């Protein structure tokens, strides 16, 4: 019965997502024909005759119900309608775009596997030879690598390898050398994450009795290393599918930066041009691809691990526990110091004479394209980026707590479906409804940010409900609500608040990513994502403009990655 209800919640949420997608053109609250008119003739005053002509020409349905129904029945037959902008059928273009995205994701997975292998194999061999539990890979390089935001890595690669060294082309798709930079940008952080996940498995395998038996019996270290890695690989194989899902979702910014005609960039272009059928197609393709990979990952997991685990649910990639380090504190401290200096110095006004000025005593971090002091803007942007992140996380924590309070068991429900949606994708869809802005971007980030907190809170609530004081309270006449208020929630608030605090940088990064794509803060805002986008065109002449937000986001990523890594007790 409970299993049925849980499955119902999962299917229901998935259906709701698809229905919302189908009804997207009507969610804006205006006649789609008017939307098309504005998409085609942005600034012209509305001419009813032209609007009606457009409606007839594009054969637009009359209402949301018939429209959603027609889109859904068409989608099932592989017909996704025609573009509102160039009137070409959407389906072939979406298919082409998702193919490009899949190629990119595959290349990134190859990079990730290579990186994880390079990090893990020597470390495992060393641990086997020294007969000691594995050392630094659980907390060191992989954690930092996994913490680098893809956008930031992409900008750095673009600036250093592409623009300064000119080794490989920086845009386009098709030639083998065009794959290198985007695959590295997506694959390096993914490889760090994979190494972190696998590090835990390797550490566990090394502690198993058979390793000691093999050593005592004089097995060659190389043979033991091979066996340990084979065990870890059985866990890794299914994780690759989940990794690819993440890559598909997070590749929008990388595709945009390297001008790769993938599904993410196409969706972004469609949003900014109000070409809603194209957007619907791209998002549908991305969601379906994610679902398919998730199912594949689940099947592979059961196939490979059932003999070991005796069934069970798909294991989410849980990073290896990290040692308590000063890294997040140092990174946060450094960031805070720079921001403080910037705020105290002040002076971010436009001085055209100082256009793209090199760093000097007058402008310690240089000046941007209109002569504004980069340090001052950087500090201002820090308040905006992290401050908004802080506020959003607080709201997310409250929502997560409220959702968790309704939990009866830890079976998958609504949050688990939403967990699979990347913030950037949600942002793209939301902006299609509301138009770009800091508020819709914040809403999109919030729509995703409460989910991990709710999942964590749910586990804590279920655990708390089973505790002895609660059972005693029930026998004193307490109902569920009284038990929650008196005994359970007070015990949940603390751990959840700590978890939320560790997620502030992640939320800020998501917000910056949306601003970078032009979906969030206005382009002249000092918000770090917007600042990064603004500095990009001058990457060659004045790298400090983009460099400041890059370093800021990088430090934020390190804080996020190292602060959220579970601690080894």
């Amino acid at each position, binding site marked *: 019965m409970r299993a049925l209800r849980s499955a119902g919640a999962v299917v229901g949420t998935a259906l709701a997502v698809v229905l919302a997608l189908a009804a997207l053109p009507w969610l804006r609250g205006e006649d789609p024909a008017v939307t098309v008119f504005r998409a085609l003739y942005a600034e012209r005053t509305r001419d009813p005759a032209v609007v009606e002509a457009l409606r007839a020409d594009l054969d637009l349905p009359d209402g949301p119900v018939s429209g959603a129904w027609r889109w859904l029945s068409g989608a099932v037959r592989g017909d996704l309608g025609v573009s509102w902008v160039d009137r070409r059928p959407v389906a072939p273009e979406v298919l082409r775009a998702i193919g490009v995205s899949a190629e990119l994701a595959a290349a990134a997975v190859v990079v990730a596997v290579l990186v994880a292998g390079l990090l893990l194999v020597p470390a495992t061999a060393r641990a086997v030879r020294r007969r000691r539990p594995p050392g630094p890979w659980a907390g060191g390089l992989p954690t930092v690598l996994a913490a680098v935001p893809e956008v930031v890595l992409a900008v750095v690669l673009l600036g250093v390898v592409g623009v300064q060294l000119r080794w490989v082309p920086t845009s386009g798709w098709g030639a083998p050398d065009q794959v290198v930079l985007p695959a590295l940008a997506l694959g390096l952080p993914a490889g760090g994450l994979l190494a972190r996940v696998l590090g835990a498995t390797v550490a566990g395998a090394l502690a198993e009795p058979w390793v000691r038996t093999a050593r005592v019996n004089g097995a060659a270290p190389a043979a033991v290393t091979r066996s340990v890695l084979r065990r870890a690989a059985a866990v890794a194989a299914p994780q690759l599918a989940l990794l690819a899902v993440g890559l598909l979702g997070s590749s929008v910014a990388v595709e945009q930066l390297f001008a790769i005609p993938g599904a993410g960039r196409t969706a972004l272009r469609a949003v900014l041009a109000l070409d809603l059928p194209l957007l619907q197609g791209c998002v549908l393709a991305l969601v379906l691809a994610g679902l398919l990979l998730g199912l594949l990952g689940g099947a592979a997991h059961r196939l490979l691990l059932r003999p070991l685990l005796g069934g069970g649910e798909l294991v989410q990639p849980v990073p290896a526990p990290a040692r308590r380090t000063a890294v997040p504190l140092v990174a946060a401290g450094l960031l805070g110091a720079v921001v403080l200096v910037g705020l105290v110095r002040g002076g971010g006004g436009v001085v055209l004479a100082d256009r793209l000025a090199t760093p000097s005593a007058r402008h310690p971090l240089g000046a941007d394209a209109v002569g504004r002091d980069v340090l001052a803007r950087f500090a201002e942007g820090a308040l905006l980026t992290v401050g908004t992140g802080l506020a959003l996380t607080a709201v997310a924590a409250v929502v997560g707590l409220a959702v968790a309070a309704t939990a009866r068991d830890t079976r998958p429900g609504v949050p688990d479906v939403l967990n699979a949606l990347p913030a950037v994708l949600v942002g793209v869809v939301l902006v299609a409804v509301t138009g770009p802005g800091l508020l819709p971007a914040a809403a999109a980030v919030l729509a995703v940010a409460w989910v991990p907190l709710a999942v964590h809170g749910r586990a804590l609530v279920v655990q708390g409900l089973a505790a*002895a*004081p609660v*059972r*005693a*309270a*029930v*026998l*004193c*006449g*307490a*109902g*569920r609500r*009284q038990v929650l208020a*008196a*005994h359970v929630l*007070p*015990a949940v608030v603390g751990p959840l608040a700590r978890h939320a605090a560790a997620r502030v940088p992640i939320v800020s990064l998501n917000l910056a990513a949306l601003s970078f794509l032009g979906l969030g803060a206005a382009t002249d805002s000092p918000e770090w994502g917007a600042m990064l986008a603004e500095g990009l065109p001058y990457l060659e002449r004045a790298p400090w403009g983009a460099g400041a937000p890059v370093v800021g986001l990088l430090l934020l990523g390190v804080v996020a990655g190292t602060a959220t890594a579970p601690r080894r007790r």
Partner: protein
Amino acid sequence: MIELRGLVRGYPGVRALDGVDLAVPTGRHLALVGSSGAGKTTLLRLLLGLEAPDAGTVRVLDRPVHPGPARSLRWLRQAVGVVAQDAGSSLDPRWPVGRSVAEPLRLLQVTGDHPARVREVLAAVGVDPDAADRRPDAFSGGQRQRIALARALAHRPQLLVADELLSGADAVLRARLLELLTGLGTQLLLVTHDLAVAAALHGDVAVLAHGRLVEHGPVADVLADPAAPATRELLAAVLRLPS
């Protein structure tokens, strides 16, 4: 006081209760005895309305007991005080123990001076009333048990149910607790696997074995002439000093 008719309750793979009839008259102590897995805890859960029987009826004070929202069972909570099996850990670690003891007074909306009642009932179980503002970790395991007992008694229930309250205590502590319990003047229903505890109650004893009631009667009669093999086994297991 209690009337159980034809109680059947099964879990996947087990028949925890297999047709139990039991009537407990008002004012007479009862020891519910049986070895592990005999169905004692299941019987308690049905009696307290925590789960429903597969078949049969539970009546307390001539009212039927059905699991349901807290409001619908308030009369039962008022009538019956419970000390859980894990009495020591059933106090919320964040609360001063006085707050825990006052919890039933608050939840059952008992009228009167709650702090005074808390002091009174703490003193009755032999805990210093001035320590009511301390948290559970300031007390020993035995003291925590007594505090849990104080909570169960705070709202003056007609019946006190205790599940294996004495099994964790050492011999001296057990004797003192038994003395305390029998001196309370409240009707007792003690669940135990120790016939010696049953003997000390001077009431009735009911023996459960494999989900069935195999023996029920005044404790003196049962101990003098045990009819069921399960009772004889339990009797043989009671430790005695060599005479």
